[in-house]
């Protein structure tokens, strides 16, 4: 072998298209709805499966040490957890088709216990796979254009975005083409596979931020400049975890063609200068703080000077190509007045449907359509869990009502983005018996919750039982609606997978001399007015948590003015009234 065989030829036309994959430029069955692999994507994913199969075989025969196998399996989404390995499957920016969801149902049944979990990175997790079978699972995933690449490990993770991308009325531009461009660039990036720590990117294309871009290593916001040209605002150094931080703007406006070279410059600064001596200080937010925003910005700009206008500069054709996958389905031209009247009479006749319509459907940019959120937060079930039967039903309903497309959300629910208003009642009737129509989206019991101490070996405390206790205590929908929108987020440890810092009410599991306690914070927000929660005071026992939450909610109800939301009241009165009421009761 010589250098020519190591270094690949410029145009590798050598890989014959696999049967069933599509040539360049054709989108196939899910036309216009989502990215579809061509032979290049398929080759990369197939070769990754073969590579991991070989790595697993070498590990099982003792040819790779535990220490060396660790980063290899993590970069394929495989954790070794408390009870079994956990496999995290990538759902790029939360977008799936019905074929993929059916495959996930099959996999959860064939290789696991018949259910899966939606994570706060819009991914899907299996809690009980066998290590020996993981290569087979990855092969099954590759057959439907899915993978588990870089869903954990110290590398660039799955890029996330607004679950209402492409259909939200407040959208400036569709973020998904940029997410796909970032997905391809970050997949198996040779320079950035062994970063100081994990690295998360989120993109927002709307006025309201539904992607929590202020709390990501890099947040990208689609904005226009003074001449109304579309570009990207670049935020760096946001994050949750032990040291929560709001991202700093390092560039107000970047032309989209420079997206990848600019990202590369940021990553290069981070890869070389991020701390590696202490994993709790290794995230980019610590580097940005240590250097100061102006110095960090200057380091990025300097690095960028050598990359700018290089081959990684996007072409307009490349952006248009990415866009062509997210055109929009073939919408019917509908009369919004007819649709409104139809829904109104349905709601009058059936108040339970009316509740669901109010809380679980959102305005759509097309007249006569709604966005539907399927709640995975039914009382008695772990938040974000979904059974194989439910996945199959959702796939079927997606085919019948929503062009075969499903989205996962970072609030751990599923979305059917394009449902005709005239079919909502019918859809709701099918969701109800399957436990997918809990009318609580955006309310207290639609909580974000990590797997916690029941599954995760990092956790200090359990989180699911706390979520369940709160869900059962506040099961009355009338009461939830009276409380109005409240985001309650629970993490089992300070790694903050449950995003407790940005919940209006945050709960963090802590370990106190071997006992599980819970710390409460108030006033976090993940919107464009992002803020981090403030700690209420000393932590509480698990059994006291429903009472504590009750006291906090009663305090809010007694203080709120007119239509004020929980967050608005909190911002007006501050933490003290809550503190006084909660600790007056001798917890």
């Amino acid at each position, binding site marked *: 072998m010589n250098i020519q065989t190591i270094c690949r030829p410029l145009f590798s036309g050598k890989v014959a298209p696999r049967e069933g994959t599509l040539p360049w430029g054709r989108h196939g069955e899910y036309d216009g709805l989502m990215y579809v692999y061509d032979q290049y994507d398929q080759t990369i994913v197939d070769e990754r499966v073969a590579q991991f199969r070989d790595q697993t075989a070498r590990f099982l025969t003792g040819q790779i040490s535990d220490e060396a196998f660790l980063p290899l399996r993590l970069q394929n989404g495989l954790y070794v957890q408390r009870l079994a390995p956990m496999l995290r499957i990538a759902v790029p920016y939360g977008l799936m088709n019905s074929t993929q969801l059916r495959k996930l149902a099959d996999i959860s049944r064939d290789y696991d216990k018949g259910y899966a979990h939606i994570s706060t990175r819009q991914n899907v997790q299996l809690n009980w796979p066998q290590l020996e079978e993981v290569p087979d699972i990855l092969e099954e995933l590759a057959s439907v254009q899915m993978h588990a690449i870089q869903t954990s490990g110290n590398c660039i993770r799955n890029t996330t975005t607004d679950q209402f991308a492409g259909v939200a009325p407040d959208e400036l531009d569709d973020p998904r083409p940029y997410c796909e461009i970032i997905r391809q660039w970050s997949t198996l990036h040779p320079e950035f596979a062994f970063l100081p720590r994990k690295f998360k990117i989120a993109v927002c294309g709307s006025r309201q931020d539904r992607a929590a871009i202020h709390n990501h290593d890099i947040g990208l916001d689609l904005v226009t400049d003074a001449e109304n040209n579309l570009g990207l605002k670049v935020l760096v150094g946001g994050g949750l975890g032990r040291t929560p931080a709001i991202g700093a703007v390092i560039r107000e406006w970047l032309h989209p063609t420079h997206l990848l070279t600019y990202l590369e410059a940021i990553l290069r600064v981070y890869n070389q200068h991020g701390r590696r001596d202490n994993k709790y200080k290794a995230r980019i937010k610590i580097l940005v703080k240590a250097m100061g925003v102006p110095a960090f910005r200057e380091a990025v700009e300097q690095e960028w000077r050598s990359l700018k206008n290089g*081959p990684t500069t996007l072409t307009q054709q490349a952006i248009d190509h990415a866009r062509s996958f997210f055109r929009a389905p073939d919408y019917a031209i509908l009369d919004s007045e007819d649709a409104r009247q139809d829904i109104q009479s349905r709601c009058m006749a059936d108040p339970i449907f009316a509740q669901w319509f109010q809380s679980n459907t959102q305005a759509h940019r097309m007249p006569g359509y709604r966005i539907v959120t399927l709640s995975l937060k039914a009382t008695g079930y772990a938040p974000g869990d979904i059974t194989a039967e439910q996945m199959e039903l959702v796939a079927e309903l997606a085919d019948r009502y929503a062009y075969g497309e499903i989205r996962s959300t970072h609030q751990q629910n599923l979305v059917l983005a394009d449902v005709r208003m005239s079919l909502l009642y019918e859809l709701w009737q099918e969701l109800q018996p399957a436990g997918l129509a809990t009318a609580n989206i955006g309310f207290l019991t639609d909580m974000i919750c990590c797997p916690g101490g029941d599954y995760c070996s990092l956790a200090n405390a359990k989180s699911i039982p706390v979520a369940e206790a709160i869900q059962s205590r506040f099961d009355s929908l009338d009461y939830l609606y009276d409380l109005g929108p409240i985001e309650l987020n629970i993490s089992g440890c300070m790694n903050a997978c449950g995003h407790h810092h940005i919940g209006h009410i945050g709960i963090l599991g802590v370990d106190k001399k071997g006992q599980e306690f819970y710390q409460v914070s108030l006033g976090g927000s993940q919107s464009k007015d992002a803020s981090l929660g403030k700690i209420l005071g000393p932590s509480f026992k698990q059994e006291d948590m429903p009472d504590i939450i009750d006291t906090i909610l009663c305090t809010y109800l007694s203080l709120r003015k007119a239509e004020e939301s929980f967050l608005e009241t909190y911002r007006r009165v501050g933490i003290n009234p809550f503190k006084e009421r909660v600790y007056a009761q001798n917890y």
Partner: protein
Amino acid sequence: MPKIIRRGVITADNRHGIDADAETTLPGQVCTLAQWLKLADKCGSAVQLEPGQPPAPLLEHLEDIELVVIHFPVLTDGRGFSYGRELRERGYLGELRASGHFIRDQLTYLVRCGFDAFQMADNTDLEAALLSLNDFSEHYQAAVDEPLPLFRRRQIAAS
């Protein structure tokens, strides 16, 4: 002499290895950065960079240097990937060698960052390690081994 992989073949390493404590180095011997900085004549020189030693001081002498060794004390410290890529992007054409505790599963990434020689701490089965050079036949990104990113090559293929 220890075996290394150079340009895809297993071969003997013919250089004098690094001696960090030596006051003076032999011609062609691998130097620490401090030793190398003191060399009056850098023609034909060989220098080893550790994590935390970016290649900036080398950039003025890229045509004189014959060998740059980038040391990976642990497999998870990825700074060397950026150092290698930067050297190649700035026009370094000599041997770029990774040494230390990386593993065969990292070889494709290293090749893509411009490394053409590998001195593995565990060199018991270099024949098997060579197989890992063929893990991937296709890539998304532009890198040292592939100057055009896939989006540009797709565009060319479609036109």
